[in-house]
């Protein structure tokens, strides 16, 4: 009986976990998605960010939440890069394309739930929410950081370990690269060599790569310095022993004389 209960619990857990997904596993539509060209539409039907969000929600089966301020911006912002020709988006490219159109129009995308129903929110950076937008950043462990590259409108926070780098010096010297403290940050943390990075997916990935390259260069420089130091120590001790040999020989000669 006990065994049956355990099995029942296991089966339910397995079924539940199979239903639960990952926040970054976005649904992929069955077929390509076509976005109309604004030039083909009457002024009143022009394709706005609101239309784009509605289309994305429909084909992926997700639901969007927007505060009223953001909604006003979404209604009044044309999906301008689409002004030319109609655009056909391959199903697997929909997520990154959608996010690209959002970010070029100053909208941030944040998934809220990974189970059904899947909810996400879009926030305009032109609203008061800009000052608190960092709190929507998703934490991504360093070993999964590559996944962030495909999410240009999502904010991520991660911790990068750079064991050979003086993190305080690096973060101070690179601070000028961060133009918007609301959406980007680089903080030295830990007595060890760690840096907390926050920013849009591709930016966080490339900064982490930059830090890794710098850290590797620093590691080589440290190794080089150590080798040079060891060589100079070896030279010194060789010179000392040579000097000893010479003085020893002199001593012998003196004694011989």
């Amino acid at each position, binding site marked *: 009986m006990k065994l049956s209960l355990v099995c*029942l619990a296991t089966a339910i857990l397995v079924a539940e976990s199979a239903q639960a997904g990952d926040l970054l596993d976005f649904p992929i539509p069955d077929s390509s998605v076509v976005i109309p060209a604004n030039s083909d539409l009457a002024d009143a039907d022009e394709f706005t960010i609101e239309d784009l969000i509605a289309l994305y929600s429909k084909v992926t089966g997700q639901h969007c939440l927007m505060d009223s301020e953001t909604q006003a911006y979404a209604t009044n912002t044309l999906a301008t890069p689409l002004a030319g020709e109609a655009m056909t988006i391959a199903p697997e490219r929909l997520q990154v394309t959608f996010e690209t159109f959002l970010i070029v129009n100053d909208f941030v995308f944040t998934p809220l739930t990974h189970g059904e129903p899947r909810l996400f929110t879009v926030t305009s950076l032109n609203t008061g929410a800009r000052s608190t937008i960092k709190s929507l950043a998703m934490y991504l462990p360093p070993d999964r950081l590559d996944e962030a590259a495909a999410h240009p409108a999502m904010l991520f926070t991660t911790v990068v370990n750079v064991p050979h780098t003086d993190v305080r010096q690096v973060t101070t010297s690179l601070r000028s690269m961060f133009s918007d403290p609301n959406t980007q*940050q680089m903080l030295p943390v830990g007595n*060890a060599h760690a840096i907390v990075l926050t920013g849009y997916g591709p930016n966080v990935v490339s900064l982490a790569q930059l830090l890794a390259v710098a850290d590797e260069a620093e590691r080589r420089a440290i190794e080089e310095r150590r080798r040079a130091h060891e060589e100079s120590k070896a030279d010194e001790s060789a010179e000392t022993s040579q000097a000893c040999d010479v003085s020893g020989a002199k001593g012998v000669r003196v004694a011989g004389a």
Partner: protein
Amino acid sequence: MRLSIASSTLAALLLLSGCQSLGLGRAEVSVPATATLGDVVTLANSSGASTLVWQRDSEQYALQSLGLGGPLRVSVSRLDDVTHALLLWGGLVVIPGDGQDRIVAAEDASPVEARQVDRALLLAEALPPATFVMTTCPLPGEVGSSKDLRRLAEQWGVHLSGVDNLVLAGPADRVTKVLRAFSAI
């Protein structure tokens, strides 16, 4: 013995699929496109998924529109979690009580009212996301600087207090993010 495990598992799965095909545990409610946060809370309470009550002064948030593009269908088993996600999105937290949970604006929630929870529970994401919780960090014997913890807490809007024994207080979702980032340092 092996046969017994296999048959028990099979029976469990059959029971589960039977329940699902009968609609048990899959009952759904529909949130209209024009719903406000207050409507969702009412729906969650009336379907028995939640036991939420608005704290005075937080009632104004109930009028906040969700701006949904269309109606949202939610299974009753997920309704409490979804309600929490919506409340958190709206800048609110849920203070657990004895049989009745209070909805409070995140900025007005006092850390002393947070529910003390074990860190493992947070890392397992076992609590609804807007649940107002507190937990100690770092644990005795664990390395980690309070300055680092403070920086991470600031980023996600989590309250941090204490000197030696630091206490993080905030919505479960955000406290979990702080703990995860802190453990990666």
